[in-house]
């Protein structure tokens, strides 16, 4: 299990997890600020819920884990939402309902399921942090492509020379899915190549 967890925080896990978080990655990646804001929320939500679930794993009855995980994740997302509304209102405006919807996203829940089976707390925390950072990286990557090429701006600041060449569709829903699909395809390709190489070596 430990080995599985270690390897999960790689392109392999990204290939597996990305479709689960496609919705909020797409919604948060039109602007770099929104992507980083959502990234911070994902890291905090997965990390904090992983720590609590890991600590409680021995006393959570197996048939009650679903409501308890959801309650813990929702609780942390609500606290993070309150903090962000107070300190980063512009980012909250950009994210809209998607920040609150993180509570019911499959990503923290999937992470919670993973860490509940772990016996080593440090690995649990590492898994949660790596999942969060992985998603942040993907969102930032998508946001860089979409904001620069779709909106001719970066961090909200206009890039004048790109204004005449921008592809507006990239900042919309269609562009979001297109960029995400390309990033997803790249990750899958890397994953497949690595897996093939590993099998060949074995």
């Amino acid at each position, binding site marked *: 299990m430990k080995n599985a967890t270690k390897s999960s925080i790689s392109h392999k896990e990204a290939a597996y997890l990305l479709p689960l978080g496609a919705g909020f990655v797409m919604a948060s990646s039109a602007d770099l600020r929104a992507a980083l804001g959502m990234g911070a929320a994902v890291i905090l939500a997965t990390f904090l819920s992983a720590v609590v679930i890991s600590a*409680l794993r021995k*006393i*959570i*009855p197996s*048939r*009650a884990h679903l*409501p*308890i995980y959801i*309650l*813990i994740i929702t*609780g942390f997302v*609500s*606290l993070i939402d*309150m*903090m962000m*509304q*107070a*300190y980063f*209102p512009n980012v909250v*405006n950009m994210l809209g309902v998607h920040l609150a919807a993180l509570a019911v996203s499959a990503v923290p829940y999937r992470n919670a399921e993973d860490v509940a089976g772990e016996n080593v707390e440090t690995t649990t925390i590492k898994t949660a942090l790596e999942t969060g950072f992985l998603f942040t990286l993907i969102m930032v990557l998508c946001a860089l492509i979409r904001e620069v090429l779709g909106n001719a701006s970066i961090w909200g600041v206009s890039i004048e020379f790109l204004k005449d060449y921008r592809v507006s569709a990239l900042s919309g829903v269609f562009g979001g899915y297109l960029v995400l699909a390309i990033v997803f395809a790249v990750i899958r390709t890397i994953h497949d190549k690595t897996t093939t190489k590993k099998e060949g070596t074995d």
Partner: protein
Amino acid sequence: MKRTDLIKSIALLLVIVAVFSAAMFGLNIHTAPLIEANNASAKFGPLLAVLPEGASFDADALIYDAVAPEGSSLTDVPPSVTAVYREASGLGYAVRVTATSQYSSAPMEISLGVSAEGKIFNVQIDSYNDSEAFDFRAKDPEYLSTYVDKDSALTDVGTVAGSTYSSTAFKTAVEEAMNALIANSLIAEGVKSDDQLLMELLPTIFTGMSNNGMMQTEEIEASGNMLSGVKALNDSGFAYIMTEGDATLLVAVNAFGTGKVFDVEGNDVTDAHASLVEEAKAHADANQTSYEEPAVARFEKLMEGAANMQPLPLDTFSSVVAANSFQVGEDTYYGFCARSYGYDIMDVYVVLDASGAIVKTDAKKLFFDEEYFNVDDDVDQPAYKDSFTGLTQDTWTGDNALIAGATMTSNAMQQAVTDAFEAFQAVQNGGTVE
């Protein structure tokens, strides 16, 4: 599920709920004031930006909301005004107003700050939705600042050349916002200067200089008795604000060199100010672009055998810039070149016979490439031009000019043909409009 597991689960859920509730309660004490301040800032931010530093709004700030106008004591508020807020300490008002031009994809959203004395603190555009090609903020970065400290008369506030429609729509929105405050006795009305009142007469007096009531002019350098002057963008003439004695007057000179003088009431006082007319005509003559030559060439092309071209003097103040009589065989014809406003300025040629019926209609360029992508291909242009043939002033309704999907071209053709009929009538009356 075992009974102990059930109890354990319920207890665990209750404990988690209690812990998170406590955490949220504690966090809320700290974040609630910050969130409230952020929300207020988001709501009033654009409004506070147009009011002096230190301005604030209280709970009763909103005194007019277009969404629920029945809840307001304000009356006669134009539809463009969406909200009026009263500043808490009595400094003045902040008005949200929208502006729409023919290039708007959605209304422009504007915030206007006005002092209790009726002077504009500041104005800003919160959302610009007109064509970027006509963004008057880019064409004249100082334009918005010309509104600062002005009262409702908006003295010396003009429009931006090259962005006439958008900047006029903006100016109209500001005027409507000010008028809403004046109509409800919240501020005093500004007093317009004579030259402002005279320039406001211009679209009525000199129709060729305006399009749908919007002036299509550029400023020219004043000299002598001139306080200011404008030149029509379509070269249909000039207008000057001039002084003689104590009087401030409007002097208009058309493309044919005819000059007229008007006082602030709009009365024709040409006879009493002949010297001003001469001065204005001299300036106009030196700066007027002549369309005589291209018009004659076009009439000769349109009417085979056209000869004996004679320029016609006109005292119309329309879009007609050239007029000629000519003969084809024994028959006399009258050709008029009108420069009306479509997507761009259109050169329209109309030839009438001696009875006043249209013989030929033509345009230098009927559609502009940037305007209607498919219309240029879809419309049978020769058939469209021929559809005017035979029409007289009595049978002309304007309907023949209509082209589906090409409103601006339709309007320009309509105006040009109307002006040609008016010019023909003037010719019949010896060059004078009845």
